[in-house]
């Protein structure tokens, strides 16, 4: 059986951090299990669903500058939000789903960066709801996951300190 390709572009500065790949995988599993009461397993990259998924972006500045994208497949968003809040799916508002996605992005970004660079000094801006982007540059750490409710995708990239995340977004 061929080995699953669970990550796409893995090159550049962030990928050169020795533990970065393990951190992304382990933190995603830990966060989904402890705070969202579900399980995330690395999965082959299959990106057709990303165009219709829910997505949020967190930008970070400080000793490292960059941004993280988190996408959740449409069918998974309601059960994840319901599980986080302890509500029935029918009780959830659209606003709550968006807020939970932003919170999940914030938690993942903070936990991953803190573990990759524990000595860093970083500020993470409040995540914003946005659309997914397939960054084509080389400095992207990317991983796809499958959860019982659907799919997740995470990309992190660093941006040169002389370039702001806003102007580099694309």
């Amino acid at each position, binding site marked *: 059986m061929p080995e699953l390709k669970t990550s796409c572009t893995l090159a550049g500065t962030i990928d050169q951090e020795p533990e970065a790949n393990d951190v992304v995988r382990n933190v995603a599993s830990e966060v989904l299990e402890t*705070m969202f009461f579900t399980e995330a397993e690395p999965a082959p990259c299959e990106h057709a669903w990303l165009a219709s998924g829910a997505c949020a972006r967190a930008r970070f500045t400080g000793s490292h500058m960059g941004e993280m994208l988190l996408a959740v497949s449409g069918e998974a968003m309601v059960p994840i939000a319901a599980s986080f809040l302890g509500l029935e799916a029918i009780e959830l508002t659209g606003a709550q789903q968006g807020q939970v996605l932003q919170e999940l992005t914030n938690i993942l970004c903070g936990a991953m960066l*803190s573990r990759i660079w524990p000595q860093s*000094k970083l500020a993470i801006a409040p995540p914003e709801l946005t659309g997914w982007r397939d960054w084509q540059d080389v400095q992207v750490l990317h991983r796809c996951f499958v959860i019982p409710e659907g799919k997740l995708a995470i990309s992190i990239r660093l941006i040169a300190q002389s370039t702001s995340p806003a102007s580099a977004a694309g």
Partner: protein
Amino acid sequence: MAYSVLIVDDSPVMRSFIRRILSLSGFEVGECVEAGNGEEALAKLDAHHVDIILTDINMPGMNGEELMRRLCADGVLKNIPAMVISTDATNERIVRMMELGAQGYMSKPFTPESLREELERILGDRHART
């Protein structure tokens, strides 16, 4: 004994989650007061007695660092133990918040059990001193 808790976080869903986790952990919560930032927290503390404050750091308006400074500068409020709950687990941030007077620091993700253990440690220490 049920403890009254002030939860300070700009995310309403995070405040709901913390309330839920407190309940799941078996920690006995009496009154649970919420605030969206440091200013709201100080206003709530004018009107409510709480046994412990759980605060985020990054919030619009008065953030968690400034809230800690205000609490420590107040002759009455400095006696209320405060614990930070944050996504930021960098060493520099943890040290700074503890230096500002936080008695505990819980980085996300956390389990109901770990939250309860930390709360009991803080409140146990407090009772041991009184």
